[in-house]
């Protein structure tokens, strides 16, 4: 029982991390109808920037304090992500307005390749560390309830907390601010939003900036967990089923989907994996999403798609 719960909690926390990446997908899809395949590349790019600047800054400024270095690196990385968002809107999306979803998808694939190459050219392609002072030691919980207690990874726990905070902040931003309202309006109907004077281009830049910021946070958390390396870009591929499961247009869906996929992956790996040879967590999520697609194409919380195929 304790083992089951441990697996479950491990899955939930991994799921929170998937949700972080999935959030980036959902934000952009909601506001501009673009399925952003480059989200993984953005995570990698942001993490690389963060890792390298926090490494370089002490040398440049002569400050040895890692906290200041991290904060400065965070600010610089955020600025870079905003610049990237602006450039993407300017150079790519603006020219592809009114194209089909598939075309936009392929364009973001191109962006992904470009950013992977650029990131590694500028920042190097080794494995880098991000150290933002997340505690790594595991803790025991509920020792009174179970024999031996539950072993919980503190890092995962903090990561989940950060993810939850980020989601809450995003929800506030979307619901309570003027810009958030404009974003929701654009998501509902581009033309109607434009006709009441919401500048579409600016909204797109903003939403890509937000996605960039989410990518940065995801990059820092994933990066401090796994190290910053090229494989970080494939995190996006792991997060795709999450989006499908939760629905492409729903922020809560991304969270719940992430949790389901996280738990499903861990449980299937532990209980089903040994039967078929292990390593199934890669495709299990996809199969889950695929089966789900057949019965409920719009996902758990997505808006009903009213078109016949």
């Amino acid at each position, binding site marked *: 029982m304790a083992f089951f719960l441990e697996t479950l909690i491990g899955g939930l926390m991994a799921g929170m991390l998937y949700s972080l990446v999935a959030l980036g997908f959902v934000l952009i899809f909601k506001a501009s109808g673009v*399925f952003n395949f480059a989200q993984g590349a953005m995570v990698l790019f942001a993490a690389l920037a963060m890792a390298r600047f926090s490494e370089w800054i002490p040398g440049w400024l002569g400050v040895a304090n890692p906290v200041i270095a991290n904060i400065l690196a965070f600010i610089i990385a955020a600025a870079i992500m905003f610049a990237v968002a602006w450039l993407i809107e300017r150079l790519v999306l603006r020219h*592809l307005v009114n194209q089909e979803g598939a075309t936009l998808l392929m364009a973001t694939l191109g*962006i992904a390749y470009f950013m992977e190459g650029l990131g590694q050219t500028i920042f190097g392609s080794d494995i880098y560390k991000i150290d933002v002072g997340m505690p790594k030691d595991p803790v025991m919980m509920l020792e009174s309830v179970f024999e031996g207690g539950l072993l919980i990874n503190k890092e995962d726990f903090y990561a989940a907390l950060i993810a939850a905070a980020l989601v809450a902040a995003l929800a506030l931003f979307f619901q309570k601010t003027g810009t958030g309202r404009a974003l929701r309006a654009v998501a509902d109907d581009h033309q109607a939003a434009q006709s009441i004077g919401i500048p579409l281009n600016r909204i797109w830049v903003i939403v890509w900036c937000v996605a960039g910021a989410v990518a940065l946070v995801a990059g820092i958390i994933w990066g401090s967990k796994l190290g910053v390396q090229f494989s970080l870009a494939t995190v996006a591929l792991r997060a795709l089923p999450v989006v499908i499961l939760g629905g492409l247009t729903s922020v809560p869906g991304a969270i719940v989907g992430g949790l389901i996929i996280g738990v499903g992956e861990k449980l299937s790996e532990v209980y089903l994996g040994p039967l078929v040879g292990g390593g199934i967590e*890669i495709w299990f999520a996809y*199969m889950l999403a*695929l089966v789900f*697609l057949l019965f409920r194409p719009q996902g758990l919380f997505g808006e009903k798609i009213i078109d016949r*195929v």
Partner: protein
Amino acid sequence: MIYRENGQFKTSYKTDQQIFPIFQDRWTILALIAFAFVGVPMLADEYLFKAILIPFLILSLAALGVNLLVGYCGQITLGAGAFMAIGAYAAYNFAIRVDGMPLIAALLLGGCTSALVGIVFGVPSLRVRGLYLAIATLAAQFFWDWAFLRIKWFTNHSPSGSVSISNLDVFGWRISTPVDKYLLCLVILVVFALLAKNMVRGAIGRQWMAIRDMDVAAEVIGIRPMYAKLSAFAVSSFFVGVAGALWGFVHLGSWEPAAFSIDRSFQLLFMVIIGGLGSIMGSFFGAAFIIVLPIFLNQFLPWLGSLVGLSISVATVSHFEFMIFGALIVFFLIVEPHGLARLWSTGKEKLRLWPFPH
């Protein structure tokens, strides 16, 4: 400027329905094929065969298959690499498990297996489309990557996980030198290209295009979406599967699942986009472009670097390759969504009127 179709009158249905109705086109293509069969083996050296020509032929075949599905039927796929893998491993299993299995039969059976699996993974296309379908095909990619790595039966319990095939033999013709391999691939490619060209001109191709352009309207005029979509998946997977079998048998000789990873799927999709969606010719352009570009960059960038006094490492070149690929994809989608094939036909159109465009 070079030639026009003036004066070529079609006086029978037969002449009206030719693949290349213009006399000069017909002969150019025939001359090109003849050159590929006779001229190239005399001129090219071993490196050219191994590094460029054989991969080009095989990947054009795969790109052709992907183009039938993505370009003609409008169903986006990110799982083409998996179907190459299925073709390769199925052909491998047929070849080693059945005694005296001829090479061609093994290749075709590999393609058939791939087609069957393609139908299964095409089923979601009846419910979803566009982005969601892309995810569904990704599921195929990840599942088969895993299956060929972990299920030992597929690799005949080979301890290293890599399989190899030797002694290729087509009806007594020993395929051993690069020239033989080239000719084998060329024969298969010509046959399949002809097949594809005829298919997209015929009833089935028109059904695919109708589905692509507007599925509801297609259904109203009596096209069965299920039949059209699944047949597109089947035919496309068949092409891709045969290409995969060739890739394993002829090009690689021995291979691991990593040879058919998701990068291969993306590569094939890029070939189709850059070459031209919905164009047979475009598949060839795209394949040629994507194969030649990295080789060109590998030679060109260090040379450029040495001009300005920089030494560019191999890693940097590969990163530049990524960047240039990415930029080109975006560039093509923005400037010429129909790819190189459209550039080719606009070029021809311009030349017709040149030098007096008015």
